[in-house]
């Protein structure tokens, strides 16, 4: 098959709102220092739940983050994170859609679970249940029922997409995906593909989520997926550690500005990295469990490398999915060892930044893709924090103790979702891009 030259795509802007910082640089310096964003949950009374800890975004000022008051009214907590991170990414790139080129700008988002706000559910409860708490539809017809269409709009599956396209005037290709924890990675992969097939010249791509609310956290508590180290919040997320016992739920958003390489060069843009390859597979094993032999994640990593034309000896940093659950970490390590048998225990630096930030669910893949770009820019790998004793099955070359400097020629970001969707992205150092 005659290989057609692939259109080259540059990352020229980054924006982040995370539990360790409300801007890219704040987040990045916290990750290099291995600072934890976890603590006792403060945004609601979590004292009765089996897990009382989480990694919350702190001191986030909705009003200043989203100047458009009308838009802000429709924005959920995670939408506000998204609008703020996307604005930062565009400002960082120094470019934004104009009326002349807005139809050539696209948007892809990994959108969070549409979990309803507890307060909204409480209103339904108060108007529309019988004495045992079972739903009674006619209660909604009570003239005093305060059902507000704004809440309804906020809850629609592509509400984030609608707010972002409006805020920034993006009139081209736009889509929203949700494959649980793989969402953010898949959104960036979808953007790469849409640009390569010529649908857009520039795109905003990322993810956002906030499940740190009573209904959001309930689902994970019921499943027993969260760490219950309630007396040690900052040490609870410890990917690849022998004693790990679940993930720490985080929240936030991450966005990249993607541009046609030649257009970015022509305007003298700062290029963080080339978004070089995307891989995407379905494990088809079990809904929550990960395949112990890495069958599934392996295919995603290999596809991403193949798509990027990057060899296994060129990857210098892997931002692992590393949730800190027993099964996931083991499965991912099996996959990494299968793909990089000679270098994964010595040369390739590996870290899960969930050790600091917690698990940002649908935003995780997008934020971690941004981390890969920053690792390339600064030639340094962030810390896999909170590490005691390595699980013998997870004996990969973890970045322990302090951030590890050294050129990153290419970086890999893995995202492995509930339901078995696996996303891998490969980023190449711009110095490694031959003209």
């Amino acid at each position, binding site marked *: 098959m005659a290989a057609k030259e692939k259109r080259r795509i540059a990352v020229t802007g980054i924006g982040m709102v995370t539990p360790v910082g409300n801007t890219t640089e704040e987040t990045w310096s916290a990750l290099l220092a291995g600072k934890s964003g976890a603590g006792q949950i403060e945004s609601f009374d979590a004292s009765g739940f089996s897990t009382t800890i989480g990694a919350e975004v702190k001191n986030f000022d909705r009003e200043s983050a989203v100047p458009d008051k009308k838009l802000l009214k429709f924005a959920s907590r995670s939408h506000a994170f998204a609008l703020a991170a996307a604005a930062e990414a565009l400002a960082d790139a120094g470019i934004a859609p104009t009326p002349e080129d807005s139809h050539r700008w696209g948007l892809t988002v990994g959108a969070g679970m549409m979990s309803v706000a507890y307060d909204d559910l409480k209103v339904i409860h108060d108007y529309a249940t019988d004495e045992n708490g079972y739903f009674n539809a006619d209660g909604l017809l009570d003239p005093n029922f305060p059902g507000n269409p704004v809440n309804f709009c906020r809850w629609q599956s592509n*509400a984030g997409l609608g707010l972002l396209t409006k805020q920034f005037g993006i009139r081209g290709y736009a889509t929203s995906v949700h494959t649980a924890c793989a969402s953010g990675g898949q959104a960036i992969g979808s953007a790469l593909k849409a640009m390569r097939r010529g649908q857009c010249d520039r795109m905003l791509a990322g993810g956002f989520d906030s499940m740190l609310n009573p209904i959001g956290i309930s689902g994970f508590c019921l499943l027993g997926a969260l760490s219950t180290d309630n007396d040690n919040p900052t040490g609870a997320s410890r990917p690849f550690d022998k004693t790990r016992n679940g993930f720490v739920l985080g929240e936030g958003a991450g966005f990249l500005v993607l541009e046609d390489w030649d257009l970015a060069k022509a305007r003298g843009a700062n290029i963080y990295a080339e978004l070089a390859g995307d891989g995407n597979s379905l494990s088809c094993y079990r809904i929550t469990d990960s395949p112990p032999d890495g069958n599934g994640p392996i295919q995603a990593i290999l596809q991403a490398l193949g798509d990027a034309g990057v060899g296994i000896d060129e990857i210098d940093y892997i931002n692992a999915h590393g949730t800190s659950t027993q099964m996931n970490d083991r499965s991912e390590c099996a996959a990494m060892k299968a793909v990089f048998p000679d270098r994964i225990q010595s040369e390739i630096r590996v870290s899960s930044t969930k050790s600091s930030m917690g698990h940002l669910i649908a935003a995780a893949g997008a934020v971690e893709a941004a981390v890969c770009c920053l690792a390339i820019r600064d030639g340094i790998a962030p810390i896999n924090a909170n590490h005691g004793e390595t699980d013998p099955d997870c004996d990969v070359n973890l970045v322990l103790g302090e951030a590890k400097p050294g050129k990153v020629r290419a970086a890999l970001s893995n995202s492995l979702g509930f339901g078995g969707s696996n996303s891998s992205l490969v980023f190449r150092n711009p110095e490694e891009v031959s003209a």
Partner: protein
Amino acid sequence: MKNASEKIVFTGSGIVCGAGATVNDIWAVLESGETAIGPYSQWQGDNWPVKIAAEVKESNRNLVSDRKLHKTISRTDMYGIYAAEKAIENSGVLAHRDALAEEKQDAFNDRTGLIVGSGGGNYTSNYDYLPLITEAKGELHDFGKELSNQVTPMWLLKNLPNNVLCHVGIRGQLKGTNACITNQCASGIMAVAESASAIWNGEADRIVAAGHDSPFEPEMVYYYHKLGLMSSEAPKPFDKDRSGTVFGEGAASVVLEREADAKARGAEILGEFLGFGCCSEATGILDLSPDGDGVQRAIEQALDDAELSPSDIGMICAHGNGTPASDLTESIGIRTVFGDAIPPLTGFKWAYGHLIGASGIADLVMTLEALKRGVLPGIGTLDEVDPEIGDFPAAKEAGKPTSQNALVICRGFGGMNVVVAVRV
């Protein structure tokens, strides 16, 4: 978009909605001119301003025979699994795999993709927490304490937006490229467009595309009604008396592969995917551009991608949801592209309601059937085209497509417009 000369074809389809659970049953409804919308049964509608919907009549057991699965999925997932597995069966792709030598089957699975458009979530699933709120007397501390005594540990799994992707994938071992698209009304049709793009891009050899949704539930009806989007009678697309849409529920699915592969395995070909367009109007969640900007651009993109000119199109399946603003702006966008030569135009929501996330892909499946039969079904509820829309060829009675090429238009919240071009 198209970047190769290889033709992509449809080799299987599956569908379920209020009008039936097979293409033939639903076709019969479209031809009869009698809507499948009627009084609903999910709750007592006597006091409600809207008393009708197009509900799926099939029992869970008829949709998914594995009863163990029923405990771990929601009703919308049943529709999606049913349609996807019918499409797979109809295409014969997995039967073809199973006849391969065992050592070739793993590679086949890795090259078989699955892309699902999902409604995203629903309100009623959250009602599982209501008895807990009663028990906890509204105290969050007690809510947390009693959580595991009141709510099933499987709650989250039952309500994952990507459940159809997981289960159809596991059951069929479809291990290749995948996505779960949560783009409101555009979800299902985008699954088809992304599938064709992925095959053209060499990511997979064949992909099952599906879309499913069950928007019909009390809170959805309440809010749609409050926003003035809901009619109390079957929708009347493009009619002067149209007053809103009505919900349906269901799912549809198609299998896409290269024409050469389909022919090599002797599969029946249902039609060809020619191209698509997708754009946002950047108007926010609900608002529509008054000049039909997004409809126009999505049609132009689709024609360009399909390498067709407007005069090549012999049929349009419009979004036609029956709301005053959407139908009007859709007609303006269509007219901007086609001028006075708009091809024969129909739409199906009058018959099986608005399936939201599944609407575009259901319309696509039925458009392929219309082209195959050479019959353009009329809009059974249309009496008189709105004078504000002007001279517009929305079909009242059955007619004929004027060529083998059709456009399917799908619009959604977020200012989304997606148009797919197909041929039989």
